Each structure stands twice: as structure tokens, then as C-alpha cells.
């Protein structure tokens, strides 16, 4: 199943991911919010490898960093890492069903979060609590409906002239 992915759909999905990342949430909802941009990057790399360039992932990371008021380059590096991992293992992932993909995606998200934490720690921050990793779990859970939805939206429209 290799549906064409236009540059437009990639751009739109990344922009929607950014907007969802910037949602003004608070408390438990905020801490368990998955990283939508990372999920979008993962989706394109797994299902349509080499459509997305690593520089795009880097740029998205910079935007998230500025929006987050964090260290510039923190998410940029993390997104590049998850970009690399999903590009390398994406082909293998496509052999599995969506449900079986989810925990493996969770593993990539975990590595990404560890990269983010390592950068923060090297800058003298305190270690965050275990709840910080809730985002990995919600991200893995969201993988199934999200990738199902994007694939559904990408499906070519049936030609009205055809039988």
C-alpha cells in the first residue's frame, strides 16, 4: 500500500502538529500531552520514507523550542534523532500491523524524551519526575488512531467517471 503523499499534506500535518503542541493546556493534561510534531515526523518516515528531509525536522524543533521558551536546539536535536531512528527502522516497522507498531513507536519517543532530558540536565536542571514519561505512553497510544486517520485522509478519491 503506497499512497502518494504530496508536499502539501506533509506541510499541513506538520503545521497541525505544531498548533496542537502549542495548545494552552495545564496540569495533568499538559504533562501527558503527546508530542504531535514528533508523531507527524514518525508517520511520514515510516510510511513514506525520504519524503521528509532532516532539515525540516530540525526547523520544526527550533520552532517548538521557541514556543516552549526552552533552550534553542533542544527539540531540534531530539527531532533529528527520532527522524534518524524512524528512517532506519521504518521499513521494518511497516511489516507489522498498526497495533504492533505502537509499542515500537513508544520506544522511539522514549529515546527522544531522554535526549531532551539529557540536554536539560547538562544545563543544570533538576531531574523531572516519572510523570514526564507519560507523554511517551500517550504518544504510543495515539499512534494507532492518528496513523489510521492520516492514511484514510490520504486515500485517493474514487474517480467519479469510473464505473
Amino acid at each position: 500500500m503506497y499512497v502518494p503523499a504530496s508536499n502539501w499534506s506533509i506541510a499541513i500535518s506538520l503545521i497541525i502538529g505544531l498548533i496542537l503542541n502549542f495548545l494552552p493546556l495545564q496540569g495533568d493534561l499538559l504533562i501527558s500531552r503527546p508530542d504531535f510534531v514528533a508523531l507527524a515526523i514518525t508517520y511520514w518516515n515510516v510510511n513514506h520514507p525520504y519524503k521528509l528531509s532532516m532539515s525540516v525536522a530540525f526547523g520544526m524543533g527550533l520552532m517548538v523550542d521557541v514556543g516552549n521558551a526552552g533552550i534553542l536546539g533542544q527539540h531540534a536535536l531530539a527531532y533529528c534523532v527520532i527522524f534518524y531512528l524512524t528512517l532506519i527502522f521504518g521499513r521494518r516497522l511497516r511489516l507489522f500491523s498498526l497495533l504492533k507498531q505502537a509499542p515500537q513507536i513508544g520506544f522511539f519517543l522514549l529515546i527522544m524524551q531522554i535526549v531532551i532530558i539529557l540536554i536539560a540536565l547538562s544545563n543544570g536542571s533538576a531531574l523531572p519526575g516519572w510523570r514526564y514519561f507519560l507523554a511517551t505512553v500517550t504518544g504510543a497510544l495515539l499512534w494507532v488512531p492518528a496513523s489510521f486517520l492520516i492514511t484514510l485522509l490520504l486515500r485517493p478519491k474514487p474517480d467519479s467517471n469510473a464505473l
Partner: protein
Amino acid sequence: METAPQFFRHGPGPLARLFIFAMLSCLLIAEDTHFKYFPQLRQAIGVIIFPLQRMAYAPADIYDQVEKIITSFNLLEENIKLRQLYLERREQLLRLAALEAENTHLRRLLGAIQEIETTTKTKVVLAEIQYTPRDPFNHKITLNKGSYHDIELGQAVIDDKGIIGQITRLYPLSSEVTLLTDKDHAVPIQVVRNGLRSVISGTGKNNELELRYLSVNTDIQQDDLLVTSGIGGVYPPGIPVATVLKIEQDPMGDFALVTSTPIAGVDRNRQVLVLSLAQTESNDSQEMSTIGSGTN
């Protein structure tokens, strides 16, 4: 638009690319945390993502509108209540004015040098918290007012209970507040009970501040209220900052370990006030108002 997969790719492979971008990220991180040569880069990206942040904020705006319509039904009742409150406060304010006049008079009698401006006149801008970062090690929030709304760098941000933090980054239509709990943030304070002056700093943990370099025999007790001392000119004097949580007297060390909790909370409410000590008179905007005694 079917594109054939490219078999012979040009350019560096994924690992080489990762290496290049990792180097670039490390350079950026070092630049951002230590050297700070290009503050404009962050400004430029901030302008690009502003419309996206605005869009993300739209659901909250709609919620506010709906809430406004619902609350407008019992506005009359609230109006009466607020009027009563206003009268009560008015009376207090008059007393404050009298006290202030008396204070300056007494100071003059004593021949004391007025180091700190005793006027409580401050300009206030009401702002809303637009975005709180997800990362718990990131003690910063974004407000929906920026340099366009006369907000300046270094202004103090408070809520109805006390100090929240200080404006540290300014964009045209939004601004960034470093919270009290940030590890690089310090506020000059005074203990209400005995007037002891010190500096309180963040620890990088949520809900924890510490008083550093207080000697073991310092007169400080649990539940002492700490307010801003006004020294340094960033924070107006007398605004609550924290209460002392616990004091550990380590017999081996020279200093007491004083931990305290901030009084104001950022996770509790969305509206905050941005204070400026500058005496600029421009009260044409609706949301700007001048509070204070206004006697001298």
C-alpha cells in the same frame, strides 16, 4: 502525482546528516545558553510561530466568550458586591495615603535618606497566560501581551496573591516570563516579622525556593512571610513572595538551609498583572489603569 522512488540518492546518508544536524544543534545550544550572540534568531522564529500560537489559543478564546455570555446573567449581583468591595478598599486606600504622608513626614523629621521610592504608584497591564511549557525543567510561561502593549524587559509579573516572576524575553505581541522557581532567578526580599533583608533564589524545582547564605544563627522562623524589599528597583516593595517552609541547621556548614514555598501560583489562574515602576502616564488603553495612592 505518482513519484517513482529514487534509487540513486545524492548527498550525505542519514547517519551523516544526523551527525551534521547534531553538531549544529550542539552549537545552537551552546550559543543559547552561554554566548548569546544572536538574540534576533529567537525573535525571528517567534514571529513565524506567532500565528500558530494564536490559532492554538483560539479554543480558549471561544471558551472565554461563552463564559462571558453565561456570566452576564448574574452581572448585576456581582456589580453590587464589587461596589461594596470597592468602597471597603477605598477606605483602606485613603488610610494608606494618610500613612504614606505620615511616613514621609516622619522620615524627613528623622533626616533619613530616602533610598527607596516610597510611592506605591505603578502602572499595570493585565495579561493572560498563553502557554505554559510542557517540560517540567522549563520554568517559563508565555503571556499574550508584548512590546506592542508597552511591556518592557525586566517588569515584575504578579497574580492576586504575590509575585510570579519577571519578563525576560520580549516579542512584539507576546512575552516570556521567567518564574520565581527558575534556577537562575533571584528576588531581593525582606522578612515581614523583623525586617531582615536577603535574596531568595529558585531551585529549578516546582514550588521550592531557597534562601542562600543565611548564617546559622539568623533570626528566621517557620511560616515567616517574605515580601519584596524593593531593592534593585525591579520589584515594587511589599509584595508577598513566599513563606518559609523549613529550616535545616546543619552544624557542619556555615549557612542555614532555608526552604520556602512561593505564595503565588501560575497553575491556578490565567490572568496575571504586569507591573512597571516607570512613572509614564499613559492611561488611554482600556486595560491599563493606575493604582496606588497618588499623593505625592
